[in-house]
């Protein structure tokens, strides 16, 4: 058993290895820095450009990263938070801990012109209903067809109270149906197999064959093409348009390494960062890449119309909209 304790000590001391160079601490979500995420490669790539070290601190997801900043307040050791999305941006900005990034806004290659001076985008994807072509021959062509369609063909959604894609779909419904959203939810209800706590559980049910449709991203089919060489799972283009998720990063105003943080945010828009995004984070790059995207990604559907509430609108209304959803479905 002494070996076990030795391992424990090793784990404990892992984090406390001495660092001599300037260290840029970046809070991010866990899957960004896991063995399959882009984190490690981006760290190597950035450290070549500076005499510094990146220390990733991974938290469950973007929400957890923001909550950590709120808890730590002025004591935070973060220099950058990477992995919030546009639904969280206003709430994050309202904490007052984030400063202006100072990066040229025109470097952002997002579906709509970028105007945010506090957060810079690093990747994006539209939400989409992914369907199993072996089970569904004629997929819904619009959100309305999904809402009014055959209730025996189910969809699994994520719970907007605990999941970002879940909140994304709720915003999508709100953007399309506005004050009729509650009615639309009521009509959609018989088609919903269940709401899962997060994306992973929903996607797990979907690939297990339990349910032929799932709410995910337009980029999801690219994974199956690249990693599994199958085009069985497809995204259904909806003619009303798709709701957009943009992932962003911002720097901490009081950070003693603000210059280095700014340098990182500029670096984030370059190929040395962006090239690792598509096939490691399975999202579309929001900056410049060295080469055109692989065919799996250029095949990703490009919605005719993009929905995106302003971060302020989401911040102001989220609670009320979730309550509306809750009261509609519980009745």
């Amino acid at each position: 058993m002494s070996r076990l304790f030795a391992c424990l000590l090793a784990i404990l001391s892992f984090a406390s290895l001495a660092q001599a160079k300037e260290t840029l601490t970046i809070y991010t979500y866990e899957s960004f820095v896991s063995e399959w995420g882009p984190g490690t490669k981006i760290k190597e790539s950035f450290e070549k450009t500076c005499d510094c070290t990146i220390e990733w601190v991974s938290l469950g997801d973007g929400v957890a990263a923001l909550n950590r900043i709120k808890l730590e307040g002025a004591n935070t050791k973060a220099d950058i938070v990477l992995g919030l999305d546009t639904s969280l941006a206003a709430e994050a900005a309202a904490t007052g801990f984030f400063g202006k990034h100072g990066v040229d806004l025109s470097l952002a290659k997002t579906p709509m012109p970028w105007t945010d001076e506090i957060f810079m985008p690093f990747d994006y994807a539209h939400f989409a209903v992914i369907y199993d072509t072996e089970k569904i021959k004629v997929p819904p062509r619009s959100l309305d067809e999904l809402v009014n369609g055959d209730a025996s063909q189910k969809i699994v959604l994520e719970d907007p109270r605990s999941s970002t894609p879940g909140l994304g779909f709720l915003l999508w419904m709100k953007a399309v149906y506005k004050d009729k959203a509650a009615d639309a939810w009521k009509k959609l209800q018989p088609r919903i197999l269940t709401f899962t706590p997060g994306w992973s559980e929903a996607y797990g049910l979907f690939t297990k064959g339990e349910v032929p449709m799932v709410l995910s991203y337009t980029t999801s089919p690219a994974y199956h093409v690249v990693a599994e060489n199958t085009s069985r799972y497809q995204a259904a283009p909806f003619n009303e348009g798709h709701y957009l998720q943009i992932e962003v990063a911002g720097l901490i105003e009081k950070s003693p390494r603000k210059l280095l943080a700014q340098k990182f945010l500029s670096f984030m828009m370059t190929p040395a960062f962006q090239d690792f995004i598509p096939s490691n984070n399975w999202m579309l790059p929001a900056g410049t890449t060295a080469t055109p995207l692989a065919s799996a990604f250029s095949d990703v559907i490009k919605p005719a119309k993009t929905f995106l509430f302003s971060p302020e609108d989401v911040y102001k209304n989220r609670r009320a909209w979730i309550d509306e959803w809750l009261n509609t479905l519980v009745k």
Partner: protein
Amino acid sequence: MAQYARKIKIPKLPIVIALGFILVAVTSGFLPLFWLSLRAGFGGLDAYLPRVISFTLKQAFLSTVLSLLFALPVALAFARRQFPARNMLLKLFSIPLALPAIVAVLGIIGIYGNNGFLHGLISVYGLPGILLAHVFFNMPMAVRLMLTQLEAVPPESFRLGAQLGFTDSQVFRFIEWPQIASSLSGIASLIFLLCAASFAVVLILGGGPQATTLEVAIYQSLRMDFDPARAALLALAQFSICTLLVLIAGRFAQSIAVFPRALGEIRRYHGKSLAARVADALAIFIGCMLILPPILQVILTGITKIQLDHSLLRAIITSLTIGFASASLGLILGWVLAQYTARSRSAVLRSAIRVASLAALIMPPAVLATGWFITLTNFTDVSRLAAVMVIMLNGLMALPFIWPAIYPALVESMQRHDRLCGSLGLKGWDRLRLVDLPVLRKPIGLAFLMGMIVSLGDLSAITLFGSEHLVTLPALIMRQMGHYRMDAAAGTAVVLSVFCFVLISLAQSWSNSRDHA
């Protein structure tokens, strides 16, 4: 109990340290949030809350009753019968406790879901599905705990019963039932609290927001809404309700009647009739049909997909290390608390200790973790203490499982040996080494194992404190799933199940090898 307490002086220091540890852990978790809630003026109570509370209580109550109803005949049958696959089945029964909710749910869906071979037998999405999953998780645990009780029946009881010509139902009424009843309220409280705190199962199988437990509401207010004040209020509601229920259940706890016993094999003289055999076989069959198919489904799905790579090996080592440390912490706390409770004459103190042993189930881990973070962040860099935090939280979470495994056995051993030890002047370390450990090796082994399995299967502490340097097997499963690697995740779930199985085998052989020492 009281007459023994006078003879043995109980050292105060260990209990003060153990209770102090739990008290500090809970208050440093809760008070920072409660303080925020006071400043915010107790807002945020709405119509949502009563609905959530009533659903929480309803599903937890039904889950508990069903788990116990299924567990009782299975445990009795296992205790009466020896058959070739018995040990194997009992080991398999320990696996559900270690499975992350999503893995178990995928297993259950593979059987009862839209493509399962028992499709249509039960509607998986909604209350029936939640109950099915909760029985899957808790019934096997109840069986194991009840079985430990039944195996502690002195052989003389059965001999005496046979001499008096007891019928099977009299054996049950006068021998088996009193033995089980002594720990029933503890087992029931444990299952109830586990189901009340159920989160992922309720969401995935609940089918929609009509199935919302307090735990979901707490999670929502701590995360999406970041409203620690509301979370504190919800936690307070959960704490009050659960404490009340535990105290009520405690009133039904029966003291254990002990007969002086000669050492020897348990021989059963009853249950020889054909009807009794058929009934027992049927009970075991039904029990197995509830538990085994989803486990088999998990194993068969993943067995060919295990990706033996660096991250898997690291996760195995991390899981075992944390599991060992947490189980040790839990066992030490449990031992000290149980020793004291068994001898204490103060009913108030006994109830307090009972509640303390359940602290991590009564106070949601997410609340504890957030509070600890607020408390510690002013003094130190909490992320460097991640492993310590996970072990502390897992140790506290293991305590409720450790308790029912050791407490009844400890009481019994105490009643049997206290006089002798008193007259021989045997106490402290010597008594532990010469009397308690040899006599209690089975319950201690089971308790340690339960603690280890709880920690092996834990996803909440590791999600709250884990980092890229600290990834356990369940955390690895979630990571793999989060990266579309559903196959690899299925493989990792098999590895987790296998480790659980191996650990149980080790613990059993340890218990048995010293049976006649």
